[in-house]
Protein backbone atom coordinates (compact mmCIF):
# COMPACT_ATOMS: atom_id res chain seq x y z
CA UNK A 1 0.00 0.00 0.00
CA UNK A 2 1.11 3.51 -0.80
CA UNK A 3 -0.68 5.95 1.50
CA UNK A 4 0.05 8.97 -0.68
CA UNK A 5 -2.66 7.71 -3.01
CA UNK A 6 -5.14 9.10 -0.46
CA UNK A 7 -3.87 12.63 -1.01
CA UNK A 8 -6.49 15.21 -2.06
CA UNK A 9 -9.21 12.61 -2.25
CA UNK A 10 -12.88 12.85 -1.32
CA UNK A 11 -14.22 10.73 1.50
CA UNK A 12 -15.84 8.42 -1.04
CA UNK A 13 -12.56 7.99 -2.90
CA UNK A 14 -10.66 7.33 0.33
CA UNK A 15 -13.31 4.78 1.32
CA UNK A 16 -12.93 3.10 -2.02
CA UNK A 17 -9.13 2.92 -1.79
CA UNK A 18 -9.28 1.53 1.73
CA UNK A 19 -12.20 -0.71 0.90
CA UNK A 20 -14.31 0.84 3.64
CA UNK A 21 -17.98 1.37 2.92
CA UNK A 22 -19.30 2.47 6.30
CA UNK A 23 -17.54 4.80 8.84
CA UNK A 24 -18.50 7.79 6.76
CA UNK A 25 -17.84 10.38 9.46
CA UNK A 26 -14.25 9.19 9.91
CA UNK A 27 -13.70 9.22 6.16
CA UNK A 28 -15.07 12.73 6.01
CA UNK A 29 -12.79 13.92 8.83
CA UNK A 30 -9.76 12.46 7.08
CA UNK A 31 -10.79 13.99 3.79
CA UNK A 32 -11.42 17.39 5.41
CA UNK A 33 -8.08 17.46 7.24
CA UNK A 34 -6.30 15.97 4.24
CA UNK A 35 -3.40 13.56 4.22
CA UNK A 36 -0.55 15.23 6.12
CA UNK A 37 1.98 17.24 4.20
CA UNK A 38 4.26 20.23 4.84
CA UNK A 39 1.14 22.39 4.54
CA UNK A 40 -0.44 20.68 7.51
CA UNK A 41 0.42 22.63 10.69
CA UNK A 42 0.99 19.50 12.78
CA UNK A 43 3.47 18.04 10.29
CA UNK A 44 5.18 21.21 9.10
CA UNK A 45 8.53 20.26 10.58
CA UNK A 46 8.40 16.51 10.07
CA UNK A 47 9.11 14.89 6.71
CA UNK A 48 5.88 12.95 6.69
CA UNK A 49 5.37 12.96 2.95
CA UNK A 50 8.44 10.81 2.30
CA UNK A 51 7.13 8.26 4.75
CA UNK A 52 3.69 8.17 3.21
CA UNK A 53 5.01 7.86 -0.33
CA UNK A 54 6.72 4.52 0.29
CA UNK A 55 5.19 1.21 -0.69
CA UNK A 56 4.34 -0.89 2.36
CA UNK A 57 3.10 -4.37 2.99
CA UNK A 58 0.00 -4.60 5.16
CA UNK A 59 -0.30 -7.29 7.78
CA UNK A 60 -3.52 -9.12 8.64
CA UNK A 61 -4.21 -7.96 12.16
CA UNK A 62 -5.95 -11.10 13.34
CA UNK A 63 -6.24 -11.20 17.10
CA UNK A 64 -4.86 -14.24 18.89
CA UNK A 65 -5.10 -15.63 22.40
CA UNK A 66 -2.35 -13.98 24.42
CA UNK A 67 0.11 -16.11 26.36
CA UNK A 68 0.50 -15.42 30.07
CA UNK A 69 3.24 -12.89 30.78
CA UNK A 70 4.16 -10.26 33.33
CA UNK A 71 3.60 -7.56 30.71
CA UNK A 72 1.41 -6.81 27.73
CA UNK A 73 3.41 -7.72 24.66
CA UNK A 74 2.25 -6.32 21.34
CA UNK A 75 4.09 -7.76 18.35
CA UNK A 76 3.57 -5.99 15.02
CA UNK A 77 0.26 -4.66 16.31
CA UNK A 78 -1.09 -7.91 17.76
CA UNK A 79 -1.27 -8.73 21.46
CA UNK A 80 0.75 -11.91 21.90
CA UNK A 81 1.05 -11.95 25.68
CA UNK A 82 -0.62 -10.35 28.68
CA UNK A 83 -0.73 -10.73 32.46
CA UNK A 84 -3.24 -13.30 33.57
CA UNK A 85 -6.51 -11.83 34.74
CA UNK A 86 -5.94 -8.52 33.01
CA UNK A 87 -8.67 -7.57 30.60
CA UNK A 88 -6.95 -7.17 27.25
CA UNK A 89 -9.08 -7.92 24.23
CA UNK A 90 -9.95 -6.88 20.70
CA UNK A 91 -12.94 -4.63 20.24
CA UNK A 92 -14.43 -2.10 17.90
CA UNK A 93 -13.73 1.41 19.18
CA UNK A 94 -16.95 3.15 20.12
CA UNK A 95 -15.54 6.47 21.35
CA UNK A 96 -13.58 8.28 18.69
CA UNK A 97 -12.56 11.89 19.17
CA UNK A 98 -14.22 13.76 16.33
CA UNK A 99 -12.27 16.98 17.05
CA UNK A 100 -8.76 15.64 16.78
CA UNK A 101 -6.33 17.85 14.87
CA UNK A 102 -4.37 14.98 13.36
CA UNK A 103 -5.55 13.38 10.11
CA UNK A 104 -3.49 10.28 10.89
CA UNK A 105 -5.56 9.77 14.04
CA UNK A 106 -8.49 9.14 11.73
CA UNK A 107 -6.45 7.13 9.23
CA UNK A 108 -5.30 4.97 12.13
CA UNK A 109 -8.89 4.30 13.17
CA UNK A 110 -9.93 3.60 9.59
CA UNK A 111 -7.09 1.13 9.10
CA UNK A 112 -7.61 -0.48 12.51
CA UNK A 113 -11.35 -0.77 13.17
CA UNK A 114 -10.65 -3.50 15.73
CA UNK A 115 -8.67 -1.93 18.54
CA UNK A 116 -6.73 -3.42 21.43
CA UNK A 117 -8.78 -2.66 24.49
CA UNK A 118 -7.04 -2.62 27.86
CA UNK A 119 -8.98 -2.19 31.07
CA UNK A 120 -6.86 -1.38 34.08
CA UNK A 121 -8.48 -2.66 37.25
CA UNK A 122 -7.50 -1.19 40.57
CA UNK A 123 -4.15 0.28 41.53
CA UNK A 124 -2.26 -1.64 38.91
CA UNK A 125 1.17 -1.20 37.32
CA UNK A 126 1.54 -2.61 33.86
CA UNK A 127 4.26 -2.62 31.26
CA UNK A 128 3.35 -2.51 27.59
CA UNK A 129 6.08 -3.65 25.26
CA UNK A 130 5.78 -2.99 21.55
CA UNK A 131 7.89 -5.17 19.27
CA UNK A 132 8.38 -4.67 15.55
CA UNK A 133 9.70 -7.52 13.41
CA UNK A 134 8.58 -6.83 9.83
CA UNK A 135 10.47 -4.86 7.18
CA UNK A 136 8.84 -2.72 4.47
CA UNK A 137 5.58 -2.87 6.37
CA UNK A 138 2.92 -0.48 7.54
CA UNK A 139 2.27 -1.66 11.08
CA UNK A 140 -0.93 -0.05 12.27
CA UNK A 141 -2.91 -0.55 15.44
CA UNK A 142 -4.79 1.39 18.02
CA UNK A 143 -5.15 0.87 21.73
CA UNK A 144 -8.14 1.90 23.81
CA UNK A 145 -7.27 2.20 27.47
CA UNK A 146 -9.57 2.62 30.43
CA UNK A 147 -8.77 2.85 34.11
CA UNK A 148 -11.12 2.74 37.09
CA UNK A 149 -12.49 5.68 39.04
CA UNK A 150 -10.75 6.45 42.35
CA UNK A 151 -7.77 4.27 41.40
CA UNK A 152 -4.13 4.98 40.66
CA UNK A 153 -2.68 3.04 37.76
CA UNK A 154 0.68 3.20 36.04
CA UNK A 155 1.62 2.20 32.51
CA UNK A 156 5.23 1.80 31.41
CA UNK A 157 5.56 1.73 27.68
CA UNK A 158 8.67 0.40 25.95
CA UNK A 159 9.63 -0.37 22.36
CA UNK A 160 11.88 -3.06 20.93
CA UNK A 161 12.61 -4.14 17.40
CA UNK A 162 14.30 -6.86 15.45
CA UNK A 163 16.55 -6.21 12.46
CA UNK A 164 14.13 -4.50 10.11
CA UNK A 165 14.12 -1.69 7.59
CA UNK A 166 11.74 0.74 5.92
CA UNK A 167 8.82 0.09 8.22
CA UNK A 168 6.29 2.69 9.29
CA UNK A 169 4.45 2.26 12.56
CA UNK A 170 1.16 4.09 12.87
CA UNK A 171 -0.40 3.60 16.27
CA UNK A 172 -1.92 5.48 19.13
CA UNK A 173 -4.05 5.46 22.25
CA UNK A 174 -7.56 6.49 23.01
CA UNK A 175 -7.18 6.91 26.77
CA UNK A 176 -10.11 7.49 29.05
CA UNK A 177 -8.95 8.49 32.49
CA UNK A 178 -11.81 7.98 34.89
CA UNK A 179 -13.18 10.45 37.41
CA UNK A 180 -11.13 10.88 40.61
CA UNK A 181 -8.42 8.57 39.34
CA UNK A 182 -4.75 8.94 38.48
CA UNK A 183 -3.11 7.42 35.45
CA UNK A 184 0.64 7.68 35.17
CA UNK A 185 2.11 6.85 31.77
CA UNK A 186 5.86 6.58 31.24
CA UNK A 187 6.92 6.04 27.66
CA UNK A 188 10.51 5.25 26.78
CA UNK A 189 11.48 4.89 23.16
CA UNK A 190 15.11 4.48 22.26
CA UNK A 191 15.75 4.21 18.54
CA UNK A 192 19.21 4.02 16.98
CA UNK A 193 19.08 3.25 13.27
CA UNK A 194 16.18 1.03 14.20
CA UNK A 195 14.80 0.51 10.71
CA UNK A 196 11.38 1.88 11.50
CA UNK A 197 9.71 5.26 11.70
CA UNK A 198 6.78 6.00 13.92
CA UNK A 199 3.82 8.31 14.08
CA UNK A 200 1.92 7.95 17.33
CA UNK A 201 -1.38 9.78 17.47
CA UNK A 202 -3.16 9.84 20.79
CA UNK A 203 -6.23 11.29 22.35
CA UNK A 204 -6.48 11.46 26.13
CA UNK A 205 -9.65 12.40 27.97
CA UNK A 206 -9.14 13.34 31.59
CA UNK A 207 -12.42 13.22 33.50
CA UNK A 208 -13.46 15.33 36.50
CA UNK A 209 -10.93 15.42 39.34
CA UNK A 210 -8.68 12.99 37.50
CA UNK A 211 -4.91 13.26 37.12
CA UNK A 212 -2.90 12.34 34.08
CA UNK A 213 0.86 12.13 34.47
CA UNK A 214 2.48 11.66 31.14
CA UNK A 215 6.24 11.36 30.84
CA UNK A 216 7.84 10.60 27.51
CA UNK A 217 11.50 9.82 26.89
CA UNK A 218 12.51 9.81 23.24
CA UNK A 219 16.12 8.94 22.70
CA UNK A 220 18.44 8.33 19.76
CA UNK A 221 18.11 8.71 16.01
CA UNK A 222 15.49 8.00 13.30
CA UNK A 223 12.13 9.62 12.67
CA UNK A 224 9.25 9.62 15.07
CA UNK A 225 6.51 12.01 15.99
CA UNK A 226 4.06 11.81 18.87
CA UNK A 227 0.85 13.77 18.61
CA UNK A 228 -1.38 14.24 21.62
CA UNK A 229 -4.73 15.78 22.14
CA UNK A 230 -5.51 15.97 25.84
CA UNK A 231 -8.91 17.18 27.00
CA UNK A 232 -9.38 18.28 30.59
CA UNK A 233 -12.70 18.26 32.37
CA UNK A 234 -13.51 20.16 35.58
CA UNK A 235 -10.76 19.99 38.22
CA UNK A 236 -8.78 17.64 36.00
CA UNK A 237 -5.01 17.90 35.89
CA UNK A 238 -2.33 16.88 33.45
CA UNK A 239 1.40 16.93 34.14
CA UNK A 240 3.25 16.28 30.90
CA UNK A 241 7.01 16.03 30.56
CA UNK A 242 8.94 15.27 27.42
CA UNK A 243 12.63 14.47 27.21
CA UNK A 244 14.18 14.41 23.79
CA UNK A 245 17.77 13.38 23.24
CA UNK A 246 18.60 13.15 19.55
CA UNK A 247 21.69 12.33 17.56
CA UNK A 248 22.62 11.56 13.91
CA UNK A 249 19.92 12.75 11.47
CA UNK A 250 17.03 12.19 13.84
CA UNK A 251 13.78 14.04 13.37
CA UNK A 252 11.61 13.52 16.39
CA UNK A 253 9.39 15.36 18.75
CA UNK A 254 5.99 16.22 20.10
CA UNK A 255 2.99 17.98 18.64
CA UNK A 256 0.31 18.47 21.24
CA UNK A 257 -2.91 20.20 22.11
CA UNK A 258 -4.03 20.41 25.69
CA UNK A 259 -7.62 21.57 25.72
CA UNK A 260 -9.13 22.93 28.92
CA UNK A 261 -12.88 22.50 28.77
CA UNK A 262 -13.87 22.33 32.46
CA UNK A 263 -13.43 24.84 35.28
CA UNK A 264 -10.49 24.69 37.66
CA UNK A 265 -8.50 22.36 35.47
CA UNK A 266 -4.73 22.67 35.46
CA UNK A 267 -1.97 21.64 33.12
CA UNK A 268 1.80 21.74 33.18
CA UNK A 269 3.90 20.77 30.22
CA UNK A 270 7.67 20.74 30.29
CA UNK A 271 9.92 19.77 27.41
CA UNK A 272 13.67 19.26 27.70
CA UNK A 273 15.45 18.79 24.42
CA UNK A 274 19.09 17.90 23.80
CA UNK A 275 20.09 17.82 20.17
CA UNK A 276 23.34 16.67 18.66
CA UNK A 277 24.76 16.20 15.15
CA UNK A 278 22.26 17.04 12.39
CA UNK A 279 19.17 16.21 14.40
CA UNK A 280 15.94 18.15 14.46
CA UNK A 281 13.74 18.36 17.53
CA UNK A 282 10.13 19.38 17.48
CA UNK A 283 8.03 20.78 20.30
CA UNK A 284 4.92 22.29 18.79
CA UNK A 285 2.49 22.53 21.64
CA UNK A 286 -0.74 24.40 22.10
CA UNK A 287 -2.69 24.94 25.29
CA UNK A 288 -6.23 25.91 24.44
CA UNK A 289 -8.53 27.30 27.10
CA UNK A 290 -12.19 27.13 26.08
CA UNK A 291 -14.71 29.70 27.27
CA UNK A 292 -16.13 27.08 29.62
CA UNK A 293 -12.82 26.67 31.44
CA UNK A 294 -12.84 29.39 34.09
CA UNK A 295 -10.04 29.39 36.66
CA UNK A 296 -7.70 27.40 34.50
CA UNK A 297 -4.04 27.15 35.47
CA UNK A 298 -1.71 26.35 32.60
CA UNK A 299 2.06 26.44 32.32
CA UNK A 300 4.18 25.37 29.42
CA UNK A 301 7.92 25.48 28.97
CA UNK A 302 10.49 24.17 26.53
CA UNK A 303 14.25 24.19 27.05
CA UNK A 304 16.71 23.03 24.44
CA UNK A 305 20.45 22.51 24.38
CA UNK A 306 22.15 22.28 21.03
CA UNK A 307 25.37 20.26 21.09
CA UNK A 308 26.28 20.80 17.45
CA UNK A 309 26.02 23.58 14.87
CA UNK A 310 23.99 21.27 12.65
CA UNK A 311 21.32 20.57 15.26
CA UNK A 312 18.03 22.41 15.03
CA UNK A 313 15.16 22.88 17.45
CA UNK A 314 11.67 23.93 16.59
CA UNK A 315 10.03 25.14 19.79
CA UNK A 316 6.54 26.55 19.47
CA UNK A 317 4.77 26.82 22.79
CA UNK A 318 1.41 28.45 22.20
CA UNK A 319 -1.58 29.60 24.21
CA UNK A 320 -5.05 30.06 22.76
CA UNK A 321 -7.31 31.57 25.36
CA UNK A 322 -11.02 32.33 25.24
CA UNK A 323 -11.56 33.42 28.82
CA UNK A 324 -10.20 36.04 31.24
CA UNK A 325 -10.21 34.20 34.56
CA UNK A 326 -7.08 32.11 34.38
CA UNK A 327 -3.35 31.86 35.09
CA UNK A 328 -1.25 30.90 32.12
CA UNK A 329 2.38 31.08 31.11
CA UNK A 330 4.57 29.73 28.39
CA UNK A 331 8.17 30.04 27.27
CA UNK A 332 11.01 28.52 25.35
CA UNK A 333 14.79 28.76 25.54
CA UNK A 334 17.47 27.39 23.26
CA UNK A 335 21.13 27.42 24.22
CA UNK A 336 24.33 25.47 24.48
CA UNK A 337 26.17 23.75 27.29
CA UNK A 338 27.66 26.21 29.74
CA UNK A 339 31.35 26.65 28.85
CA UNK A 340 32.30 27.51 32.41
CA UNK A 341 30.68 24.37 33.78
CA UNK A 342 32.32 22.27 31.09
CA UNK A 343 35.72 23.74 31.85
CA UNK A 344 35.30 23.28 35.59
CA UNK A 345 34.75 19.54 35.13
CA UNK A 346 37.62 19.26 32.65
CA UNK A 347 39.95 21.11 35.01
CA UNK A 348 39.50 18.19 37.41
CA UNK A 349 40.73 15.65 34.86
CA UNK A 350 37.32 14.64 33.54
CA UNK A 351 37.50 14.15 29.76
CA UNK A 352 35.64 16.49 27.45
CA UNK A 353 33.21 13.75 26.43
CA UNK A 354 32.50 12.68 30.00
CA UNK A 355 32.09 16.30 31.08
CA UNK A 356 29.55 16.81 28.31
CA UNK A 357 27.73 13.66 29.32
CA UNK A 358 27.61 14.74 32.96
CA UNK A 359 26.13 18.12 32.05
CA UNK A 360 23.67 16.67 29.57
CA UNK A 361 22.44 14.11 32.10
CA UNK A 362 22.19 16.82 34.75
CA UNK A 363 19.93 18.78 32.40
CA UNK A 364 17.80 15.72 31.72
CA UNK A 365 17.72 14.43 35.29
CA UNK A 366 14.91 16.63 36.53
CA UNK A 367 12.62 14.73 34.17
CA UNK A 368 14.22 11.29 34.52
CA UNK A 369 13.98 11.47 38.31
CA UNK A 370 10.23 11.99 38.09
CA UNK A 371 9.99 8.30 37.15
CA UNK A 372 9.39 6.75 40.54
CA UNK A 373 10.13 3.14 39.63
CA UNK A 374 13.90 2.72 40.06
CA UNK A 375 14.12 -0.11 37.49
CA UNK A 376 12.40 2.03 34.84
CA UNK A 377 14.49 5.03 35.82
CA UNK A 378 17.65 2.98 35.41
CA UNK A 379 16.45 1.73 32.03
CA UNK A 380 16.01 5.31 30.83
CA UNK A 381 19.44 6.33 32.13
CA UNK A 382 21.11 3.38 30.43
CA UNK A 383 19.34 4.12 27.11
CA UNK A 384 20.35 7.74 27.45
CA UNK A 385 24.03 6.92 28.03
CA UNK A 386 24.01 4.37 25.22
CA UNK A 387 22.59 6.91 22.78
CA UNK A 388 25.09 9.52 23.99
CA UNK A 389 28.06 7.27 23.27
CA UNK A 390 26.52 6.07 19.99
CA UNK A 391 26.26 9.69 18.95
CA UNK A 392 29.84 10.23 20.04
CA UNK A 393 31.19 7.36 17.96
CA UNK A 394 29.26 8.56 14.90
CA UNK A 395 29.95 12.21 15.32
CA UNK A 396 33.21 13.95 15.99
CA UNK A 397 31.46 17.02 17.45
CA UNK A 398 31.81 15.51 20.88
CA UNK A 399 35.54 15.00 20.72
Amino acid at each position, binding site marked *: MNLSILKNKTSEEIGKHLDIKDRVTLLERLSTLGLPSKKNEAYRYFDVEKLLEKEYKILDNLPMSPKPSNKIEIKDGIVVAAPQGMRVYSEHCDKIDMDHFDPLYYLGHLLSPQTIKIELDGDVEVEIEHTFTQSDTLIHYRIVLYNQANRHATVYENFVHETIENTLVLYGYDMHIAQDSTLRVVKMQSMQHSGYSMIASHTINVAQNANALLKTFDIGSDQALQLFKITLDTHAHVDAGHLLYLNANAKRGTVSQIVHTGEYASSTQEAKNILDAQSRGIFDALIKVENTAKYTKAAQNSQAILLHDGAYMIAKPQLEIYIDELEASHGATIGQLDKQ*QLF*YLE*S*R*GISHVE*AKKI*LVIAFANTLIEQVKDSRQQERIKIAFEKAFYAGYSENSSLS
Partner: protein
Amino acid sequence: MSSIMKIENLQAKIGDKEILKGLNLELEPGKVHAIMGPNGAGKSTLSKAIVGHYDVDVTDGNIIYKNQIINDIAPEKRALEGIFLSFQHPVEIPGVNNAYFLRTALNAKRKHEGKEELDAAAFLRLMKEYLTLLDMKSDMISRSLNVGFSGGEKKRNEILQMMLLEPEVIILDEIDSGLDIDALRAVSEGINKMKDGKRSFLVITHYSRILDYIKPDYIHVLKEGKIIKTAGPELVAQLEEHGYDGIEEE
Protein backbone atom coordinates in the same frame (compact mmCIF):
# COMPACT_ATOMS: atom_id res chain seq x y z
CA MET B 1 67.13 23.42 42.40
CA SER B 2 65.38 22.44 39.17
CA SER B 3 61.88 23.81 38.77
CA ILE B 4 58.69 21.75 38.45
CA MET B 5 57.13 24.48 36.33
CA LYS B 6 58.83 27.16 34.31
CA ILE B 7 57.05 29.98 32.58
CA GLU B 8 59.08 31.73 29.92
CA ASN B 9 58.24 35.07 28.34
CA LEU B 10 54.52 34.33 28.56
CA GLN B 11 52.34 36.63 26.52
CA ALA B 12 48.62 36.12 26.62
CA LYS B 13 45.45 37.98 25.83
CA ILE B 14 41.80 37.71 26.65
CA GLY B 15 39.75 38.77 23.68
CA ASP B 16 41.71 41.62 22.12
CA LYS B 17 43.26 42.75 25.36
CA GLU B 18 46.88 41.89 26.00
CA ILE B 19 47.20 40.93 29.67
CA LEU B 20 50.41 39.02 30.15
CA LYS B 21 53.37 40.77 28.55
CA GLY B 22 56.41 38.55 28.81
CA LEU B 23 55.97 36.93 32.20
CA ASN B 24 58.75 34.76 33.62
CA LEU B 25 58.32 32.54 36.65
CA GLU B 26 59.80 29.35 38.06
CA LEU B 27 58.09 27.17 40.63
CA GLU B 28 60.37 25.09 42.80
CA PRO B 29 59.25 21.72 44.12
CA GLY B 30 58.08 21.84 47.72
CA LYS B 31 57.91 25.62 47.84
CA VAL B 32 55.09 28.07 48.33
CA HIS B 33 55.17 30.91 45.83
CA ALA B 34 52.85 33.83 46.43
CA ILE B 35 51.85 36.12 43.60
CA MET B 36 50.71 39.54 44.69
CA GLY B 37 49.73 42.46 42.61
CA PRO B 38 47.20 45.20 42.04
CA ASN B 39 43.82 44.69 40.38
CA GLY B 40 44.09 44.01 36.68
CA ALA B 41 47.77 43.05 36.85
CA GLY B 42 47.07 39.64 35.26
CA LYS B 43 47.08 37.35 38.32
CA SER B 44 43.94 35.42 37.38
CA THR B 45 44.94 35.38 33.72
CA LEU B 46 48.18 33.70 34.73
CA SER B 47 46.34 31.01 36.65
CA LYS B 48 43.94 30.48 33.75
CA ALA B 49 46.79 30.27 31.27
CA ILE B 50 48.50 27.57 33.33
CA VAL B 51 45.39 25.35 33.38
CA GLY B 52 44.45 25.99 29.73
CA HIS B 53 41.29 28.06 30.21
CA TYR B 54 39.36 28.77 26.99
CA ASP B 55 39.30 32.52 27.73
CA VAL B 56 43.05 32.90 27.49
CA ASP B 57 44.91 32.98 24.22
CA VAL B 58 48.64 32.38 24.70
CA THR B 59 50.29 34.36 21.92
CA ASP B 60 53.94 33.79 22.78
CA GLY B 61 56.20 32.15 25.31
CA ASN B 62 55.99 28.75 26.96
CA ILE B 63 54.57 27.06 30.01
CA ILE B 64 56.88 24.18 30.77
CA TYR B 65 55.73 21.54 33.25
CA LYS B 66 58.01 18.65 34.16
CA ASN B 67 60.24 19.59 31.21
CA GLN B 68 57.36 19.48 28.71
CA ILE B 69 55.77 22.46 26.95
CA ILE B 70 52.09 22.28 27.79
CA ASN B 71 50.77 25.31 25.86
CA ASP B 72 48.68 23.10 23.59
CA ILE B 73 47.77 20.37 26.05
CA ALA B 74 44.03 20.01 26.84
CA PRO B 75 42.90 21.18 30.29
CA GLU B 76 41.89 17.68 31.42
CA LYS B 77 45.31 16.31 30.47
CA ARG B 78 47.03 19.06 32.47
CA ALA B 79 44.83 18.16 35.44
CA LEU B 80 45.59 14.46 35.11
CA GLU B 81 49.30 15.27 35.02
CA GLY B 82 48.98 17.06 38.35
CA ILE B 83 48.09 20.71 37.81
CA PHE B 84 45.24 21.96 39.97
CA LEU B 85 43.53 25.33 40.10
CA SER B 86 41.35 26.28 43.03
CA PHE B 87 38.96 28.73 41.41
CA GLN B 88 38.27 32.17 42.78
CA HIS B 89 34.58 31.71 41.92
CA PRO B 90 33.80 27.98 41.67
CA VAL B 91 30.95 27.47 39.24
CA GLU B 92 27.61 26.02 40.36
CA ILE B 93 26.36 22.99 38.44
CA PRO B 94 22.73 22.12 39.22
CA GLY B 95 21.83 18.46 38.78
CA VAL B 96 25.39 17.16 39.19
CA ASN B 97 25.72 15.43 42.51
CA ASN B 98 28.88 16.54 44.31
CA ALA B 99 29.84 13.01 45.38
CA TYR B 100 29.35 11.71 41.84
CA PHE B 101 31.53 14.51 40.50
CA LEU B 102 34.25 13.93 43.08
CA ARG B 103 34.31 10.19 42.49
CA THR B 104 34.36 10.65 38.71
CA ALA B 105 37.30 13.05 38.99
CA LEU B 106 39.15 10.80 41.42
CA ASN B 107 38.64 7.71 39.30
CA ALA B 108 39.72 9.55 36.15
CA LYS B 109 42.97 10.36 37.96
CA ARG B 110 43.39 6.82 39.30
CA LYS B 111 42.76 5.38 35.85
CA HIS B 112 45.34 7.75 34.39
CA GLU B 113 47.84 6.50 36.95
CA GLY B 114 47.05 2.87 36.18
CA LYS B 115 45.35 2.31 39.52
CA GLU B 116 42.07 0.53 40.16
CA GLU B 117 38.99 2.71 40.32
CA LEU B 118 37.62 3.28 43.81
CA ASP B 119 34.25 1.67 44.57
CA ALA B 120 31.45 3.60 46.26
CA ALA B 121 32.14 2.24 49.75
CA ALA B 122 35.87 2.98 49.68
CA PHE B 123 35.14 6.42 48.27
CA LEU B 124 32.68 7.22 51.06
CA ARG B 125 35.21 6.15 53.71
CA LEU B 126 37.75 8.51 52.17
CA MET B 127 35.20 11.29 52.03
CA LYS B 128 34.32 10.91 55.67
CA GLU B 129 37.95 11.40 56.62
CA TYR B 130 38.37 14.54 54.49
CA LEU B 131 35.03 16.05 55.51
CA THR B 132 36.06 15.84 59.16
CA LEU B 133 39.45 17.34 58.38
CA LEU B 134 37.91 20.30 56.57
CA ASP B 135 35.07 20.70 59.05
CA MET B 136 32.53 20.21 56.27
CA LYS B 137 28.93 19.11 56.74
CA SER B 138 28.36 15.60 55.46
CA ASP B 139 25.37 16.66 53.36
CA MET B 140 27.65 18.81 51.20
CA ILE B 141 28.67 15.85 49.12
CA SER B 142 25.09 14.76 48.50
CA ARG B 143 24.05 18.16 47.17
CA SER B 144 24.41 19.49 43.66
CA LEU B 145 27.93 20.70 42.93
CA ASN B 146 28.44 24.11 44.60
CA VAL B 147 24.71 24.88 44.33
CA GLY B 148 23.53 26.88 47.33
CA PHE B 149 26.98 26.63 48.94
CA SER B 150 28.13 29.63 50.92
CA GLY B 151 31.41 31.29 49.90
CA GLY B 152 33.25 29.34 52.59
CA GLU B 153 31.65 26.04 51.60
CA LYS B 154 32.66 26.56 48.00
CA LYS B 155 36.27 27.14 48.97
CA ARG B 156 36.26 24.14 51.29
CA ASN B 157 34.90 22.09 48.42
CA GLU B 158 37.80 23.27 46.27
CA ILE B 159 40.26 22.18 48.95
CA LEU B 160 38.45 18.86 49.25
CA GLN B 161 39.02 18.30 45.53
CA MET B 162 42.65 19.28 45.91
CA MET B 163 43.18 16.78 48.72
CA LEU B 164 41.42 14.05 46.79
CA LEU B 165 43.32 14.56 43.55
CA GLU B 166 46.74 15.02 45.17
CA PRO B 167 48.14 17.36 42.50
CA GLU B 168 51.78 18.37 42.19
CA VAL B 169 51.29 22.02 41.31
CA ILE B 170 48.51 23.73 43.21
CA ILE B 171 47.30 27.16 42.16
CA LEU B 172 45.13 28.91 44.72
CA ASP B 173 43.39 31.86 43.11
CA GLU B 174 42.14 34.24 45.79
CA ILE B 175 41.44 31.30 48.08
CA ASP B 176 40.90 33.71 50.97
CA SER B 177 38.22 35.82 49.29
CA GLY B 178 34.85 35.59 51.01
CA LEU B 179 36.15 33.53 53.93
CA ASP B 180 35.56 34.31 57.58
CA ILE B 181 38.31 33.61 60.10
CA ASP B 182 37.15 30.07 60.93
CA ALA B 183 36.78 29.13 57.28
CA LEU B 184 40.15 30.67 56.46
CA ARG B 185 41.76 28.64 59.22
CA ALA B 186 40.12 25.37 58.10
CA VAL B 187 41.02 25.96 54.46
CA SER B 188 44.59 26.88 55.39
CA GLU B 189 44.96 23.77 57.53
CA GLY B 190 43.81 21.68 54.58
CA ILE B 191 46.36 23.36 52.35
CA ASN B 192 49.17 23.03 54.88
CA LYS B 193 48.46 19.31 55.22
CA MET B 194 49.16 19.00 51.52
CA LYS B 195 52.69 20.28 51.93
CA ASP B 196 54.97 17.29 51.50
CA GLY B 197 58.22 18.87 50.44
CA LYS B 198 57.52 18.02 46.78
CA ARG B 199 54.34 19.84 45.87
CA SER B 200 54.51 23.42 44.68
CA PHE B 201 51.95 26.02 45.61
CA LEU B 202 51.16 29.18 43.72
CA VAL B 203 49.10 31.38 46.00
CA ILE B 204 47.48 34.26 44.17
CA THR B 205 46.24 36.95 46.50
CA HIS B 206 45.53 40.63 46.95
CA TYR B 207 46.04 40.61 50.66
CA SER B 208 48.68 39.35 53.02
CA ARG B 209 46.14 37.83 55.45
CA ILE B 210 46.27 34.34 53.87
CA LEU B 211 50.07 34.42 54.08
CA ASP B 212 49.81 34.43 57.86
CA TYR B 213 48.37 30.93 57.56
CA ILE B 214 50.23 29.59 54.52
CA LYS B 215 53.80 30.62 54.91
CA PRO B 216 55.32 31.53 51.55
CA ASP B 217 58.89 30.87 50.50
CA TYR B 218 58.81 33.45 47.72
CA ILE B 219 56.81 36.55 47.00
CA HIS B 220 56.46 37.59 43.37
CA VAL B 221 54.98 40.96 42.48
CA LEU B 222 52.95 40.90 39.28
CA LYS B 223 52.31 44.27 37.72
CA GLU B 224 51.17 45.13 34.20
CA GLY B 225 51.52 41.59 32.97
CA LYS B 226 55.02 40.90 34.25
CA ILE B 227 56.73 39.70 37.40
CA ILE B 228 58.58 42.83 38.42
CA LYS B 229 60.11 41.62 41.67
CA THR B 230 60.81 38.37 43.45
CA ALA B 231 61.92 38.23 47.05
CA GLY B 232 61.47 36.35 50.30
CA PRO B 233 58.54 36.65 52.74
CA GLU B 234 59.95 39.91 54.07
CA LEU B 235 58.60 41.61 50.94
CA VAL B 236 55.07 41.33 52.34
CA ALA B 237 55.78 43.90 55.03
CA GLN B 238 57.19 46.29 52.43
CA LEU B 239 54.10 45.88 50.28
CA GLU B 240 51.84 46.47 53.27
CA GLU B 241 53.68 49.68 54.01
CA HIS B 242 54.27 51.16 50.57
CA GLY B 243 51.77 49.43 48.33
CA TYR B 244 52.53 48.22 44.82
CA ASP B 245 53.47 51.69 43.59
CA GLY B 246 56.51 51.61 45.78
CA ILE B 247 57.92 48.54 44.03
CA GLU B 248 60.38 49.14 41.24
CA GLU B 249 60.95 46.64 38.44
CA GLU B 250 64.16 44.69 38.94
